[in-house]
């Protein structure tokens, strides 16, 4: 149902190609890391899938439904949610209002209140600050809010763009713990942009490496981490890309 298929997808910004003929299959309930250097097209891939940027070529299917060309609000209704890079919290809205923005697409209106309570159980700090302006939250809290906000759309697939960006390592650990727990509880399909192969290996999952707008390699995250360690040993520097 929530199987995600990307077939020969290209994206360009004006004349600049961002993605060229990218293909990718993601199974229901799978966890996939998208990695690669800056400018490799990681964010563009996520944006193309959720409809935030138009594709110039190829097709994208969610659960067998063709999505390329549909507006983002229609794709959200197919069970796709996005936690963007930089989080894009609505800073002038309260924490609770942020959580409610995405509930308009749900048919199970009765479950919304209990879902909000569940989010507050998962993220107690959000519960404490539910009436505060979301712009006043710390970076880590905003990341939690962005994830919670995405969950409130009741998604089948959640895409998270660089959850570790600008966060202290212990907070990043918390974010990942939460994501894994949520995935287990809800059977979510997770697609995460993560630059660090070491962290991806610790969390576990498949890794897809992009470079110059194309998929150059894919496999188990642990293998990637091992290879990166090896490179580090040979070349004496971290093979991980700076965030």
């Amino acid at each position, binding site marked *: 149902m929530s199987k995600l298929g990307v077939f020969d997808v290209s994206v360009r910004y004006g004349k600049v190609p961002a993605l060229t003929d990218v293909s990718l299959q993601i199974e229901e309930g799978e966890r996939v890391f998208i990695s690669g250097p800056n400018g490799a097209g990681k964010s563009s891939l996520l944006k193309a899938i959720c*409809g935030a940027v138009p594709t110039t070529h190829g097709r994208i299917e969610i659960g067998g439904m063709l999505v390329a060309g549909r*507006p*983002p609000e229609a794709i959200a209704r197919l069970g796709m*949610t996005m936690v963007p890079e930089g989080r*894009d919290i609505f800073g002038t809205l309260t924490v609770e209002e942020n959580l*409610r923005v995405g509930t308009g697409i749900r048919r199970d209106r009765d479950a919304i209140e209990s879902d909000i309570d569940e989010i507050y159980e998962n993220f107690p700090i959000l519960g404490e600050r539910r009436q505060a302006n979301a712009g006043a939250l710390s970076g880590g809290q905003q990341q939690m809010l962005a994830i919670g906000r995405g969950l409130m759309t009741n998604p089948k697939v959640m895409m998270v763009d660089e959850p570790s960006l600008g966060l202290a390592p212990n907070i990043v650990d918390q974010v990942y713990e939460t994501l894994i727990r949520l995935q287990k509880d809800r059977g979510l399909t997770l697609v995460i942009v993560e630059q660090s192969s070491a962290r991806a290996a610790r969390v576990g999952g498949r890794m897809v490496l992009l470079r110059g707008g194309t998929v150059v390699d894919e496999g188990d995250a642990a293998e990637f981490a091992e290879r990166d360690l090896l490179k580090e040993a040979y070349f004496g520097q971290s093979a991980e890309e700076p965030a």
Partner: protein
Amino acid sequence: MNAIPQLFFDAMSLGGIYAMAALGIALIFGVMNLVNFAHGEYIAFCVFALIVPSTDAVAVLFLGKAPALLLIPILLALGAAIAVASEFVVFRHMRKATPVAMMISSFALGFVIQNSLLLIYGSRPKAISLWPDLNKPVSVIGASVPLLQIIVILATLVVVVALALLLKKTKIGLEMRAAAENFTMARLLGVRANVVITGAFALSGALAAAVAMIMVTQTGVADIRMGGQIMLVAFIATVIGGLGSLPGAVAAGFLIGAASVILQAFLPLDARPFRDAFLYTFVIVILLVRPQGLFAAHSAKPRV
């Protein structure tokens, strides 16, 4: 004499009209970065909808004959309808255009509406008597005030409170606020762009109709050019208030109304004809000190 309460009522009622007109512009700017210069023509359209189409100098009431309880909702709906129609016919096709291109289109749309009115009703201003009883003075805390002024002040309060409640308490209100801050993110969460934009245009058009009813009762004239003057002041109010900020639009509307009334009262007689020059100097000073406006709105994010 009771010059101070009198001034207060003058300032509040003029400010109320400006505030409502400015709100109509700020609402649309908030969700789609469009300064809709056709807004003044929505007002003129609503005024002319009150009378029988003809080029005669004396206006015969048409819609205006309906009892107030019927007329008010009809005219509000008519204002909403022309605004929504203009979105559907013009602005919907320009979602990806630059704000400048959209603004110029709004000028063009304004001219089309104005010239259509010109064609049907002629260019001469027409005397029109809608609710003449409202201009009878009543005595309030020692000041002699036309009943209409009090109604305008109350109506502005009702409109502002109703709008605040709508934005704060309803689903479409929440979606509009989210979309005004970050349209793309709101859409990624399933907020329908068309619903939010249509909603903003409908509210904006209804506000134009409210302004139209007040202006026509106050002045007793239907004039093809009446939209342009109020549009100018309302636009300046939205800029001073901070483009896109609704509280800013209201505050600045009242501020300009008050400043205008106070200048009129206290300038030396010889200087009074140049009141607007003083008024706009004051506007320039405000913008020099706070170029982002009194209430800086959250950054103008890319549309759709």
